[in-house]
């Protein structure tokens, strides 16, 4: 790396690794199911940063990275819609949104 200050591909990869770690921590730790979904969105964004950064630094004439990022955003929106609908339906039945209190299937 010529200088640490000017962003290169490595900077973006490390940033997305940090974001991925934070999202992973949130998925495992949060008790509220909506909090889990929000942490999953962080995971998606980490991957998207990777896609767009690699597009810019490794293949600037192509557009596969941006296209993948756009499709990831779309699929993530669909998944968030369905996931939140499920959480609302569960809340209507069990009156809680906390994952450790939803234990009807436990033996």
């Amino acid at each position, binding site marked *: 790396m010529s200088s640490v200050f000017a962003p290169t591909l490595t900077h973006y990869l490390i940033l997305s690794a940090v974001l991925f770690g934070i999202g992973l921590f949130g998925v495992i730790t949060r008790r509220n199911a909506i909090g889990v979904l*929000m942490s999953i969105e962080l995971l998606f964004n980490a991957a998207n940063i990777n896609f767009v950064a690699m597009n810019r630094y490794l293949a600037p004439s192509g557009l596969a990275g941006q296209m993948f990022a756009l*499709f990831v955003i779309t699929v993530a929106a669909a998944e968030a819609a369905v996931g939140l609908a499920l*959480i609302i339906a569960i809340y209507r039945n069990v009156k809680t949104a906390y994952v450790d209190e939803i234990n009807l299937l436990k033996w």
Partner: protein
Amino acid sequence: MTAEGILFWGLAVATVALALAVVLSRNIFHSALALAATLGSVAGLYLVLRAEFVAVVQLLIYVGAVVTLVIFAVMLTGRVQETLRQPQFNRHVGAGGLAALIFVALTIQAIRATGPAGVPGARLASVEEIGRGFMTEWVLPFEVVSVLLLAALVGAVVIARKDG
């Protein structure tokens, strides 16, 4: 000390700090607001990367729609404050360890694998080229994702509807 460097570091620090606010906040509504800000600063990063269309789509769909949906769900499921329970230190430590492990693995790969440093392109594909790509090379995923969105829309309405 280029403009791109200053913008990158500022947005990177903001993104990480806001992401920490998302996962560590006791109040789920604060988490949702922090998520909106995180997604906004990631859109700023896309602008630094010269991907304007992705940045605008990120703002429209993620900040505009997904976060709105999350806030609706937060409002509809009551209990905004996390009930004070025994903080599960085991789970937090385990999760932190796993996250740190994954981060170290990814960082090692990032530093090792970017052999040719990669000269940043002056400009990325424009909106016109993306649009043309959607209609030519990427038309199949485009159509498939339309069907997926329709299925998700119908499914979400059916699942969240009140019975009877």
